[in-house]
């Protein structure tokens, strides 16, 4: 059961974050952090298809995570989701066309490796 939840969490997180990145890049950079300006940003975002899909995916990931937390420890639940780092970086490079140089690849691999070690 726990591994089914882990698979759901990893897939939903990857999908959610990539869709979030696409939606936010389409929206453009947020410059104004005053409450009324942020309110306008939120009202624009709730009409963006990518953001809505991202939030749906994040909600699936969140509830699956809540369920996982109720049957396992946080120290198991958090590290296993490290697999999404690799998937998301690959998608960032090929789908979002980000420049992922050696520093980023090494960085992501170190982080994913480190997070995995934390579960021991």
């Amino acid at each position, binding site marked *: 059961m726990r591994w089914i939840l882990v698979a759901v969490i990893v897939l939903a997180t990857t999908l959610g974050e990539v869709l979030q*990145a696409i939606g*936010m890049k389409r929206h453009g950079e*947020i410059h104004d952090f005053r409450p009324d300006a942020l309110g306008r940003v939120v009202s624009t975002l709730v009409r963006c298809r990518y953001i809505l899909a991202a939030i749906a995916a*994040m909600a699936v990931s969140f509830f699956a995570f809540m369920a996982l*937390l109720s049957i396992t420890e946080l120290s198991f639940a958090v590290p296993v989701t490290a697999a999404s780092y690799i998937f998301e970086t690959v998608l960032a490079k090929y789908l979002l066309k980000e420049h992922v140089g050696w520093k*980023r690849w090494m960085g992501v691999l170190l982080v994913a490796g480190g997070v995995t070690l934390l579960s*021991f």
Partner: protein
Amino acid sequence: MISSTTTLQLKTRILTTVVVLTNVLGNSLLSRGMRSVGVLLSLSPLPYVQALFNPWVAVGVSLLIVWLLSHMALLSWADLSYVLPMTAVAYVLVAVVGRLFLHEQVSLVRWAGITLIMLGVILVGRTSPRTTLSQPAAEKDSRVEVKTALRSMSGSQHSEARP
């Protein structure tokens, strides 16, 4: 005058901090709350709604909403492949908080994990937060970045005169 690149760096650092802090606090409170709520394996939404009435869960979820919004704001200009490893500081913070405040044992393997994460974060922190130039909002800033890069290539020893 502060250059756009400096502003971008500063903005990115501040928001990354907010993302990390709300994530760690939110997850910790949620975890604390779920322990008192009990086993939650249901396809019906009712038990989840009931769990929200637990004060720990409620505050945890509120913080995670702030986390989601700040994460989205950060992604409005920064690369996903930058945000992803940078926000991994959260794992380090969880371990440090556990060691300092909950007096948990941090094994040698875990310290090794923490070290690897910090090395990764330092490495990614040395890259520019934004590498894509296509979006219209980024156009002005990226032109400045290109100019700065050209200037540093042509002779970084010269002191820069800013208007």
